[in-house]
């Protein structure tokens, strides 16, 4: 898919009308992530219940359309999942970026698969992976 199609079909919608761009009052987890060279700067927040399931995900901050859209798509994907399932999604996304993802790994990424070709652009891969790296770090702590 060329960049223009990716923007039109997926990035613009999530960038201009993000579902998860808000601030949670009492998040279980919170972590800031940044790409200092581009100025992408986001703060992720998660609410995790006693059953270990991520009930809500939110983000604030600023950045390019790709980083903002990728964050929104990721949060959509991990709501209702356990921490381990979320980490498996991160692993799949990174595998997709590196071009080593299996069919199953791609499948669980659902809408995030649309970012595959952006993630392969060296100049934009960092924008696409920022939220995922931040999530991984947050859940590993």
């Amino acid at each position: 898919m060329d960049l223009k199609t990716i923007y039109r079909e997926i990035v613009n919608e999530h960038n201009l009308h993000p579902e998860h761009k808000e601030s949670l009052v009492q998040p279980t987890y919170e972590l800031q992530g940044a790409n200092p060279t581009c100025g992408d700067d986001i703060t992720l927040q998660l609410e995790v219940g006693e059953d270990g399931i991520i009930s809500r995900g939110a983000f604030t901050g600023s950045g390019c359309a790709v980083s903002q859209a990728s964050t929104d798509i990721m949060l959509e994907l991990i709501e209702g999942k356990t921490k381990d399932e979320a980490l498996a999604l991160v692993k799949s996304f990174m595998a997709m970026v590196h071009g080593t993802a299996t069919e199953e790994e791609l499948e669980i990424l659902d809408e995030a698969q649309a970012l595959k070709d952006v993630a392969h652009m060296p100049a934009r891969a960092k924008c696409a992976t920022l939220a995922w790296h931040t999530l991984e770090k947050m859940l590993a702590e």
Partner: protein
Amino acid sequence: MDIKAIRNDFPILKNSDYVYFDNAATSQRPRQVIDAITAFYTETNANPLRGLYAWSVEATDRYEAARERVSRFINAGSPEEIIFTRNASESLNLVAYTYGLAELKEGDEIVLSVMEHHSNILPWQMVAKKTGAKLVYLEPDAEGAFSEEELAKIGPSTKLVAITMTSNVYGVTTPINKIAKLAHANGAVIVVDGAQSTPHQKVDVQSLDADFYAFSGHKLLGPMGIGALYVKKTLLETMPPFLTGGEMIEYVTRESATYAELPHKFEAGTVNAADACGLAAAIDYLETIGFDFIEAQEQKLTTMIYERMKEMEHITLYGPTDPTKRSGIITFNIEGCHPHDVASVLDSEHVCIRAGHHCAQPLMQYMGVGSTARASLYFYNTEEEAERFLSALTKVRGWLGFGS
């Protein structure tokens, strides 16, 4: 002068449909520069300054001729005042690690400006941390000019002023001569970052009265990996060496050493002779074109682009309102669009610009923006390229989902 003929000298421009508007990051190189580098390796490659045979002697001659060429280019007092480095960053670090650490002490003030590139901030932060000297920042107005009030921060406690001659974000040229006078009247030295000015205007370090002047070769048609530092001889004579090792010594015993004469004392190890030859060829090329033509061509295109962008909706322009004061640099933002997305859209139209903080985060903070997009021109750019850039700009918001 015929732009087409000029562009024919640049192999990368000749056969490509890319519009290269990122000249403030690095310029392109003409065939003459590439040939000079090849000539060194194919005709006389040997380790300069050491050998006792013909190739090495010729390698030494070409390297020293390049130094002499740089010296004439910026009108240094003598070639000994020119030290070859990798780039302007290394030149500025050399000043900080040698002169800075040796001469500054607690309570001294280092005056620099908010418009500096990180290369002219971080070395001074290091000096301040190690010596207890204090950093004092000059704040420019929205056009990049310093008021008398700001310049009055240069005072009796000032020991060193580090300032850019041309801002890589605003494109504005600072009044070095005036600032040098103020520094010298207060007993301070002035370090000038010439990375962005040297490619675009005739520089005379003696008439500027700069004590130190740093620049890179790659921004003025030369190879990457070669730059220069000019140091006034009286200062150079008292400065301790920067890096130590081969060919910068006179005598070495197990415990001590005496150093080689100037400027070799500051050039440890095998030097980058081939790229120095490339730099000399770049200077020859620039002077053949002439700075009158370079400035006229840049101003013509910058004015055309600036005036047209001013009329466009959703565009914010930063820096001088007089386009002839921009040294070919146009920094801007498009409403609702992150500069990285702007650069991606332009890339898909084969237009190359820079997006980000331009290694000038304190200035971005001061301007109240996270990042900006920047188009930067050089004398080989054309009106046709300017039209393609302007036309690509009009597509950005549509691409990113606005107004459709």
